[in-house]
């Protein structure tokens, strides 16, 4: 790569950003959607879930009880749960109570939401609940029946223990936790939040970065060639490296703003709308700085790779065809890192490009700054960033980039 003058690079980046931002659709995609996405999710999600739960509770379900004899207390329990009951005898020829026989048609036709089969054999009651797992109403009916049966079972157990002259409470719970379980966790709320967020922040950060860079990378390379603006640009006193770095800076800025806004929206959502569910993680300044560096290096690699591949492409369509599966393929390292146990993670994981940055994000969100890991992932990522930029520079140096190849 030839010498790079920052002033030239800045002029190119400024022009690219100005052009990109002047498209109102870009502003909506870049600012409004990222900023509003999580707050909206945090507001809409609980509302929808609460409404759905209320609707389900108010729902009257139809149960067919098949039994030759039913305990009065069981019936009473079922009647208290918004359940309409029809009672018939057990069908003949059952191998077990769970064998649906011909009764599945009663569930599939939605005549009944669930079928409770009960049979007393000596001192023990045997039961099964036939239901249709693909129907939410049927699942709800099954849950209500199971709840009623559990309540009955608990009462029956206590009665039998007491009839035997024992203390039901100490017999059923000979071992019990003393105090409040969460009080025994020495991790602070902030650390717990960090743990929770470390499971999905790397996922969303990596995916956002990868997906947000696609469109500007295509637009500023092969898009420019298709629009016929590249030739005049290449005739300017501007080296190909300056051109690449200017475009790289523009894509990184656009992607960075998009990702930063999404993180802002997410943290705002956590802090103000979902404070009961998740706390804001407490992490040190060093971790914050390293987190920023990790995201920066990840962005550097991704953007340089995208610019190179887009410049290699013959058309905008081809660039989209190449970059979309790469973005989706990013899910593989992202998911892989979710299953790696950070307590005894081997150092070699931090030498695998892309995976290392994602693992580093997880560690840093847990406020773990392990020097050996940090040195490995920074060195490897800088090396890979250098390679991707070199590759991009090679693509930008090709003479045929000026020729419209679409």
């Amino acid at each position, binding site marked *: 790569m030839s010498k790079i003058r920052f002033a030239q690079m800045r002029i190119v980046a400024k022009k690219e950003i100005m052009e990109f931002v002047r498209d109102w659709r870009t502003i909506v995609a870049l600012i409004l959607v990222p900023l509003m996405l999580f707050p909206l999710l945090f507001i809409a999600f609980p509302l929808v879930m609460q409404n759905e739960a209320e609707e389900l509770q108010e729902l009257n379900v139809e149960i067919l009880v098949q039994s030759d004899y039913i305990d009065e207390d069981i019936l009473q329990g079922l009647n208290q749960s918004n359940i309409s009951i029809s009672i018939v005898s057990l069908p003949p020829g059952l191998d077990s109570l769970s064998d649906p026989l011909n009764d599945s048609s009663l569930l599939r036709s939605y005549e009944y939401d669930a079928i409770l089969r009960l049979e007393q054999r000596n001192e023990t009651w045997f039961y099964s609940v036939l239901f249709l797992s693909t129907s939410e109403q049927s699942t709800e009916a099954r849950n209500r029946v199971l709840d009623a049966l559990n309540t009955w079972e608990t009462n029956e157990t206590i009665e039998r223990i007491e009839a035997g002259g024992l203390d039901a409470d100490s017999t059923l719970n000979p071992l019990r936790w003393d105090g409040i379980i969460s009080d025994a966790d020495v991790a602070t709320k902030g650390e717990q939040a960090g743990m929770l967020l470390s499971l999905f922040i790397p996922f969303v950060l990596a995916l956002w970065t990868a997906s947000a860079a696609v469109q500007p990378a295509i637009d500023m390379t092969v898009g420019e060639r298709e629009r016929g603006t590249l030739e005049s640009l290449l005739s300017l006193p501007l080296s190909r490296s300056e051109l690449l770095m200017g475009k790289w800076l523009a894509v990184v800025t656009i992607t960075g703003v998009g990702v930063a806004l999404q993180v802002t929206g997410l943290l705002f959502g956590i802090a103000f709308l979902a404070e009961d569910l998740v706390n804001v993680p407490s992490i040190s300044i060093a971790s914050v700085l390293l987190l920023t560096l990790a995201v920066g290096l990840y962005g550097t690699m991704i953007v340089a790779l995208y610019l190179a591949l887009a410049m290699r492409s013959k058309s905008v369509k081809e660039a989209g065809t190449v970059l979309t599966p790469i973005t989706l393929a990013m899910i593989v390292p992202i998911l892989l890192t979710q299953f790696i146990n950070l307590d005894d993670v081997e150092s070699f994981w931090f030498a695998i490009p892309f995976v290392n940055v994602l693992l580093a994000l997880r560690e840093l969100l847990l406020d773990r700054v392990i020097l050996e890991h940090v040195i490995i992932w920074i060195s490897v990522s800088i090396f890979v960033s250098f390679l991707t930029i070199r590759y991009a520079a090679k693509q930008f140096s090709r003479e*045929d980039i000026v020729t419209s190849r679409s």
Partner: protein
Amino acid sequence: MNENLLHLTDVSKSFGDVHAIEHVSLNIQNKSVVGLVGGNGAGKTTLLRMMAGIYKPTKGRVHLKDGKNVDEMRSVLGVVPESTGLYSKLTAWENIRFHSRIHGIDDSIAWSRTLRFAELLDIQDSLHRYTEGFSRGMRQKTALLRALAHGPSILLLDEPTAGLDVTSARIVRKLVQKLKDEGGTVIYSTHHLAEAEQVCDRIIIVHNGTIRADGTPEELLQLTDTNSLEEAYVSLTSEVARPRQEDTITPSKFALLWRRLFTRSHRYEVNEDE
């Protein structure tokens, strides 16, 4: 006194196996308008792109009077490509300013130069409009202003009047004439002989990647012993013109095989009686 500004010394350019330009040697003098005349695929654009430093010659050298290679001294050039290359979401002035800033020219200097030429081109009222809705003529005029804003020594124009209406083409030719009168140097690519005769004081006939003739219109007539430039051109370029070279992209073997899998060959029976 005229001096040589730009030299092409035994320049050849190949794209893979295709020889787009072969053994071209030229000297471009200052205070002249030089016309590169040739048909489609003759090699005019490749030659201009080498002069602009966009393409590097496969053989030979393109250099300026001080011996420096042209790609190291692009600030002395003003280039108007055939596609004009304007950014549609920027205004005309922003397009011009972007280029002049890359050339290291102060905005106020670029603005005063732009205003001067904008009046000549009758486009001064549109400088702050987005180029998105510009006509072909307006785009061409803006591209010319952009190429002139940094005060280049040599102006390279690739088909500057292609697709323009009569009035716009005339305005462009008048500007070229004015630049020449002011001592400027213009290299003007066109396939219109009449236009070249009108504007240029030297015409270079390019055909199939080689230079067939180089001289004033009178010299070309003398050389070919003809009465008109059109006849002279025909006699110099008698063999069949090749297709455009640099745009010919050969797909990979796999791509070709894949394409064939989804290509049905249609054969229709022709009824002779009909």
